[in-house]
């Protein structure tokens, strides 16, 4: 037994040494980067007018590199699919959440929804946007779930699924429509860019929020048996 422990201590020291070496190496690499570089900010500034969003981050996220975001919506949905494929949702716990949480949730949930709406709206100009809004919305959902609220069986079927795929669906739909009208994938016509981005963001916010909440639930909600 002691030998095993000794071996482990040795191993750990070795590991620490290696990791320090890695850290030092990486640090050296980082420090040898040029101290000033424009990156892509100039390109972004040049093209931001036609992008449909004044906030550069939003412009990059939804326009310049919108394709990344599209795939990333896919990742989120995929995670949910993965979680759902593992198990169905755990049984509702009988324990009462307690008065404080109960009270808090009643106060906070509407507020959070409001904040989410604001973040979504402001994202076009200032920091904010679909993901932030979606996260806040998700937090509201989590809070609701914490206090023991569960979606009704009627909602947990197709309607829930539609909400979940709405974000990605909107993104893909816009992309496809643009292709159909002869443009490239996600090549928004400048006059409609802002509107399209808002549309996608709105759908994405809703989807992200619900997805996060559903992830928190940790399983597939029971569906009402259909016939």
């Amino acid at each position, binding site marked *: 037994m002691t030998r095993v422990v000794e071996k482990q201590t040795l*191993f750990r020291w*070795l*590991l620490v040494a*290696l*990791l320090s*070496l*890695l850290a030092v*190496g990486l640090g050296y690499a980082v420090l040898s980067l040029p101290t000033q570089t424009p990156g892509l900010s100039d390109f972004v500034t040049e093209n931001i007018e036609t992008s449909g969003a004044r906030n550069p981050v939003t412009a990059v996220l939804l326009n310049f590199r919108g394709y990344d975001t599209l795939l990333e919506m896919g990742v989120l949905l995929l995670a949910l699919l993965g979680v759902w494929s593992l198990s169905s949702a755990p049984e509702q716990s009988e324990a009462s959440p307690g008065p404080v949480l109960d009270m808090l949730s009643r106060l906070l949930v509407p507020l959070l929804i409001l904040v989410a709406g604001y973040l979504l709206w402001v994202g076009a100009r200032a920091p904010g946007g679909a993901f932030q809004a979606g996260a806040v919305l998700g937090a509201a959902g989590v809070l609701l779930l914490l206090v023991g609220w569960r979606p009704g069986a009627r909602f947990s079927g197709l309607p829930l699924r539609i909400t979940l795929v709405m974000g990605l669906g909107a993104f893909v739909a816009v992309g496809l429509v643009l292709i159909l009208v002869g443009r490239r994938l996600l090549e928004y016509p400048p006059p409609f860019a802002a509107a399209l981005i808002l549309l996608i963001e709105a759908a994405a916010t809703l989807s992200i929020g619900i997805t996060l909440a559903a992830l928190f639930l940790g399983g597939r909600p029971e569906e009402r048996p259909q016939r």
Partner: protein
Amino acid sequence: MNTTLSLFLLLSVPGVPLLLALPALHSRLSWPCHLAILPAVILLLTPAVFSIEVPWLLFGTGLGVGGASRLLLAMSVVLWAAVATLLRLPTSRSADNRLATFFLLTMAGNLGTIIATGLVGFFAFSTLMGYGFYGLLVTTGNAGARRAGRAYLGLLILADLALFEVLLITAATTGDLGFEAVHHAMAQSSSLGLYLSMVVFAFAAKAGVWPLHFWLPLAFRSARPTVALLLGGVPVAMALFGMVRWLPLGEITSPKLGLIIQSIGVAAMLYAILTGLIRAQLKLLPAYAAIITTGLFVTALGAGLADPAAWAEYKSLAHFYIVSLGFGLAVLAATIGWLQARREYPATPAMQTDDSIPWFERWPGTVVRWGAKIGLDILPGLRSSWLAKVGCLRQICARQRTLDNIERSLQRWTFASTLLLLLAMVSVFLAAC
């Protein structure tokens, strides 16, 4: 005579017996053996001297009859006809008709050998004759005949091998393998000595010349009388005939070899006389007679080799000698057989009980024992190698465990991710190089 007809006739001399050798054929005919001799008889009766070339047979074979071979052919025909009559072959399908097959095969070989005008043809037909005669000997006889047959077969194979070498040497020297051409070519060839000694050895083995005679007494003693009738006329006579045909007699002078051959001949005669006297057995008489006569022939041959001029003188006698030898031995064997059939003489009383295996019979057993001995010698080695194998197995087990352990430790997270780390660093280092 027109060519087609002669071709047909000459081919049918060995061909008809060969065809009839098929059991399906000869079992349906009433006198198959006599029928098979017919072409030869016709050939004998045709007065012309003629020969043909059959280019598509083997490497091109020549067939023909001349003065000497006609004589031999006549002897053979008479002998075969006599034996065919005496043998009383069973003709019905159900009976064992292998005897007829062998009979016909041997006959085909014999007749073919006589009419062959080239080395290859002679060789091929004499081999056929040899194997056929072996069958004839063995199929009818008792255990002793079988032993004799085996000894004969062994010598036959050795002789054929030697003849094969001779053929190869000849073919390498000259393109034409007709007897005349070969004689001329070999007389000038550098490998003449090898040629001569091989030929002499081969035919001596086939003829049972002393000291390769040992199967002859056995054969005469145990073969069926009818087969014994053939012993002199078929293997012995044909082998002597082969010597005459193959050796470039009269064209070369080889005193040394001649002397050796002569002395062998003399020794053979002495031996036969002495042994014949000691083993005064009626049935063995033809055997010793054969040894003596072949000895005499060989002596003459040796003299001919030593002095071509001498050979030229009694060259024509040689064929007569062979023929008379064949007939003489046949008559002798027939007489003895007849005497024995009348039970005036006991069938080889003393010697026959002595069934100890002669030395020349023991070699397969010796080889087997030898092999076993070697096996025993190897066996400790085998055992040790087997032990080593077991050890190996153990080692393999150990190796298997090692493999398992390595794989298991590779599958541990800590290990694996450390390796990853190392790999990343080494890559950085190497990329920097």
